[in-house]
């Protein structure tokens, strides 16, 4: 087996984050009752005409520039003709002859340290189809056109990948780049990023490619890895047993961990592509390119280097914070408000992550302002609140973006700095707990923890545990 190598190319569909559809003004919002986000255009009514959403073009160009593509300065849309009820016109508006981006590449680095460039053949814009629902009760098929006309880009790579690890590094790179651009949230599970895997095998040293298959229905990185392993094995088995690999499209069943043939090349339809006469060719000006270039964000690689140099953060912190651009933005803005970088990083990595996870939210859903996080950190720094209180305040901030100073004041959560009152309380605690005092004097260091706890309780948490400890020891 080891004398074979796997050759993989990817077709990645990414749903763009526009508010409206690619050729009409209907909302792209997910959900909604069937056929409520529709109009004559996206339901293919006779006489309706498509008009290109400019934001789609700008996102596609931004992704192209970020992946080192040549931008096609005179580009067109083509019709891909095929009959299926999810496709209301029975043609999909896509790009074949003059796609918006060509000849790009992205640099990847795998977990095991392989570094290489994966070339991008092209990126084109197209419309999504509707959704068919097979209703067994009615014994009928129903169609929902809410998704019809949602904008997609398809990123077609060259067959440059040789392992599942490289495929995942490539997808991660695309996901990071595109989400940093704000062009899509790129979620595999939710279908806003979909990858079809073209795979063939050949003996190591061969220069010709083997016959490839195309694998569909891959909804997670794990499924992709399993499908690649499964298909590689299947193809090698075929060759080893003297059979031939058939060029076909296969569907991966991740539960059963095997794939089924969907259609072979012989059944391939003739899509009769031709330029869509309803859409005028697009001329991309140098000004537009400059404008899009000027909006390009600092990408993750650059941030990783800068965070290490500028903030001296540990690598673990940097990787976590830069995983998501919004999180990185919150970090940078909080630091800009004067908070120490490591403290900010701690709040984001621990409490923020915990609350996001508990509430099933994404970093994009973070509501607290960097200013308020900075002021909470300030309150802990000057010991106005202790860490337990700070967490309580943060939870409220996470929910309602409250002003932490105000919240602490309104709820009387500030640490008692009146040492006289504290001493009085501690003396009372000592008097009430003779057993613990004895234990302490008999060398049980742990007993002091109990006494600190009792004091904190008596002070309703509004004191600094360090000071309590110090005074206790002194009085004992």
């Amino acid at each position: 087996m080891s004398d074979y190598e796997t050759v993989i190319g990817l077709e990645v569909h990414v749903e763009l984050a526009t508010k409206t559809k690619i050729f009409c003004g209907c909302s792209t919002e997910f959900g909604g009752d069937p056929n409520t986000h529709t109009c004559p255009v996206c339901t293919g009514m006779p006489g309706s005409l498509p008009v290109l959403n400019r934001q789609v073009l700008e996102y596609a160009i931004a992704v192209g520039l970020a992946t080192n593509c040549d931008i096609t300065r005179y580009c067109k849309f083509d019709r891909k003709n095929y009959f299926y009820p999810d496709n209301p016109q029975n043609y999909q508006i896509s790009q074949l002859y003059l796609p918006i981006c060509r000849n790009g590449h992205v640099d990847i680095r795998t977990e095991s340290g392989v570094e290489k460039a994966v070339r991008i053949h092209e990126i084109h814009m197209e419309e999504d189809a509707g959704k068919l629902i097979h209703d067994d009760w009615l014994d009928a098929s129903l169609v929902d056109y809410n998704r019809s006309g949602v904008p997609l880009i398809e990123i077609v790579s060259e067959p440059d990948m040789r392992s599942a690890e490289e495929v995942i590094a490539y997808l991660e790179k695309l996901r990071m780049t595109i989400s940093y651009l704000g062009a899509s949230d790129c979620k595999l599970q939710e279908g806003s990023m979909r990858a079809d895997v073209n795979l063939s095998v050949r003996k190591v040293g061969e220069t010709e490619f083997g016959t490839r298959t195309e694998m569909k229905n891959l909804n997670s990185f794990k499924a992709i890895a399993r499908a690649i392993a499964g298909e590689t094995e299947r193809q090698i088995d075929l060759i080893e047993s003297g059979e031939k690999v058939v060029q076909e499209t296969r569907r991966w069943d991740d539960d059963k961990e095997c794939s089924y043939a969907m259609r072979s090349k012989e059944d391939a339809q003739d899509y009769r592509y031709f330029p869509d006469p309803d859409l005028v060719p697009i001329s991309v000006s140098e000004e537009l390119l400059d404008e899009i270039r000027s909006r390009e964000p600092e990408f993750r690689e650059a941030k990783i280097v800068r965070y290490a140099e500028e903030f001296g953060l540990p690598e673990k912190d940097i990787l976590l914070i830069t995983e998501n651009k919004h999180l990185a933005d919150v970090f940078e803005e909080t630091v800009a408000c004067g908070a120490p970088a490591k403290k900010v990083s701690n709040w984001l990595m621990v409490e923020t992550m915990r609350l996001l996870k508990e509430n099933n939210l994404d970093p994009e859903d973070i509501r607290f302002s960097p200013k308020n996080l900075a002021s909470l950190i300030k309150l802990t720094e000057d010991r106005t609140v202790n860490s337990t209180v700070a967490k309580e305040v943060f939870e409220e901030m996470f929910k309602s973006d409250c002003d932490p100073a105000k919240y602490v004041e309104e709820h009387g959560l500030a640490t008692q700095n009146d040492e006289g009152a504290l001493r009085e309380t501690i003396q009372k605690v000592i008097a009430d707990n003779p057993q613990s005092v004895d234990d302490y004097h008999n060398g049980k260091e742990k007993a002091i923890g109990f006494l600190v706890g009792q004091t904190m309780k008596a002070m309703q948490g509004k004191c600094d545990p360090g000071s309590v400890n110090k005074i206790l020891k002194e009085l004992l």
Partner: protein
Amino acid sequence: MSNITEMDALTLGREIASGNIKVREATESYLSSVKSKDEQYNCYVTVDEEGAMKAADEVQARIDKGGLKGSPLAGVPVAIKDNMCTEGLLTTCSSKILYNFVPTYESTAVAKLRDAGAVILGKTNMDEFAMGSTTETSYFGPTRNPANPEHVPGGSSGGSAAAVAAGECVYALGSDTGGSIRQPASYCGVVGIKPTYGTVSRYGLIAYGSSLDQIGPLTRNVSDAAAVLTAISGHDERDSTSVNKPVVDYTKSLVKDVKDIKIGIPRDYFGEGLDPEVAAAVRGAADVLKNAGASVEEFDLSLVNYAIPAYYTIAAAEASSNLERFDGIKYGYRTEEYAGLHNMYKKSRSEGFGAEVKRRIMLGSFVLSSGYYDAYYLKALKVKALIKKAFDDAFSKYDIILGPVAPTTAPKLGESLSDPIKMYLGDIYTISVNLAGLPGISVPCGTDSDGLPIGVQLLADCFNEEKLFRTAYTYESEK
């Protein structure tokens, strides 16, 4: 008032504006004209009596309140070709496959007419999906030529042309993909203009050949055509191919003056196949313009013989894709019995489309097929570009090109469909105009010995409708 149905649109509009004629009265006159004549001519697929009367009262109320002052067409009854979507009103394209289709939206051209106070009488008959030159391919039976009911009215906007000629409406909207306004205008003895591609929004026009289709008016005279085109033209953000230019008031071009106009007559248009009576009438029209002060000379346009194959390749290719949406699933005709999805598609489309539509779908699917695309479709696009260049060269020398609209006058019913190639060849003078996107107008220039109307075609360079109207108006006034 007995002569209402003889008035042109601008005259009737003036009478209505001055209060001499009420909109209701005008509408009733036309509805009764339709009632008495349409059984014979079959100009209409749908007559919307109720909608027309309701619109008449609404328009009258607007006028009475001092509205619609700048609109010369307020209150004037109009007929709309049945391939333009009308909200709430049956729109069939004269096809069985859309026999029950009621749009929920209005085409832009119709909406503009309604804004201008037009009263829509109904929807006119046409060749199925605008494919044909005789209005005989309609699912709802052929329209007859009011000049002689044994003859066809031309097509595909035959219902619109015949309705104007018969006095069943004051004016009508048609659409022109390869001559479908100009040729029936010529056969029926009315004026018809296809504007420059992009002048009138195609939103709501059920597409045949998207890169060639244009909406335009069919009218009793050149002045009405100028007024109607002014009302329906203008940029529409719902149509990417509509041109973003300021709206022109074409009625300002209705001036008798052609002294600065250089007219070229393509020698190639007067060759084999042109009926001598038609040739004589067209040359007569050129003489009228020469006498009015225009310079007239002959020239070689070239490439004339390539226009028909290029046109039928491009139009059929686009049509094959445009008509895919008619599948029996979402609206329109669905076959009664079927076994599974593909059988439903096949049966619905086989039963829903007529022979000429199927012929063009097959032709179009073929020329777009892998292996044939370059040889047919791409080559046709190259021919189209060359034809455009030939016209560009011609318009560097001439302001107007003058020639026949069609090689003959209207044929008898039943003569054309048996030989589709012959029918396609009849489009020789009109289709290159669509390929080049140019404006063209057909103006009546006489009749043949059987009393059938003949039209002269005037062409101008893109967006030079003003010269076209000025020349046409001068000819109409001086003839």
